[in-house]
């Protein structure tokens, strides 16, 4: 049992960490959120289909992060927090590496569920089905929302591209 759990830690810790980092930004809080998710995985390991551990874990990690965001901003809607890192104005002359970090920041500024969609699909390379399971959406919704998210990112890129 412990060996199986260790394997899951090895396989999924980076994905859970990346998702938590994108959602929470704060590394310490992201670590706490990941640990909580894995504790839940340990406690529920016998009731989870072994083939669906990854979407289950991503879903629990994401929900934990969103709960933390709600507690962090109890009187504000999440979108207000999302707007905190929006890059203002065109940033002409950026280098490629700078554009990479700019893209991460811009993904952070997306509203939910767009941000999770981009992270799960474009960063984690999850299948559409897995993304749908994590976010509790149907496949057409996943494709539509992902298209909108990418369109937003692309439009912002058009403004800052050298």
């Amino acid at each position, binding site marked *: *049992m*412990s060996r199986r*759990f*260790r394997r899951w*830690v090895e396989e999924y*810790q*980076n*994905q*859970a*960490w*990346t998702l938590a*980092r994108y959602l929470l930004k704060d*590394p310490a809080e992201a*670590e706490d959120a*990941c*640990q909580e998710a*894995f*504790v839940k995985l*340990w*406690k529920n390991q016998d009731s989870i289909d072994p083939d669906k551990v990854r979407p289950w874990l991503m879903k629990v990690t994401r929900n934990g992060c969103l709960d933390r965001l709600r507690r962090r901003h109890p009187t504000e809607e999440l979108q207000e927090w999302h707007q905190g890192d929006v890059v203002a104005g065109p940033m002409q002359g950026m280098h490629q590496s700078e*554009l*990479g970090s700019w*893209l*991460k920041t811009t*993904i952070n500024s997306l509203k939910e569920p767009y941000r999770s969609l981009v992270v799960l699909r*474009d*960063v*984690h390379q999850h299948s559409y089905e897995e993304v749908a399971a994590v976010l509790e959406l149907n496949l057409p919704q996943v494709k539509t929302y992902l298209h909108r998210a*990418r369109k937003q*990112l*692309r439009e912002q*890129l*058009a403004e800052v*591209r050298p």
Partner: protein
Amino acid sequence: MNKDDKTLDAHFDHLLNQLEVEKAPASLTRRLKRIPQEERSDKPRWPWLFPGPLPKWVMAPAFAAVPLALLVVVMMQPRQPSPAEVEQARQDLAVAFAYLDKVGNRTGNQIQTVIGGELRHSVKDQLSEHMPFTEQSLEEETT
């Protein structure tokens, strides 16, 4: 779609493809690997009694025992009678003693009558044999 759009799309796709899963810090890995040990120490000591999470109904008798114990404690407390109850008891006692007095007097009279009569006759009979005047004196006494 013009050439600029195509270039933008390609650039965008290239950037997206560059996004990588970040490596979790070593501190997180250590925390995650400690989970089995930490969670095992939280498990119940008698797993054969309640395998898995403790059922909620197990606590129900414990919660029910609290008000029951309170009720028993309250009932065990010595109760102070009310003034009306004290007065009623006093009256009942007076009636009972009056009854006992009456019964005692009646019984005493009967005993006295029976024993006194027997005694008188036996003494009178004995004396009258030897002293004839006693009959007269007994009659005087009784009158």
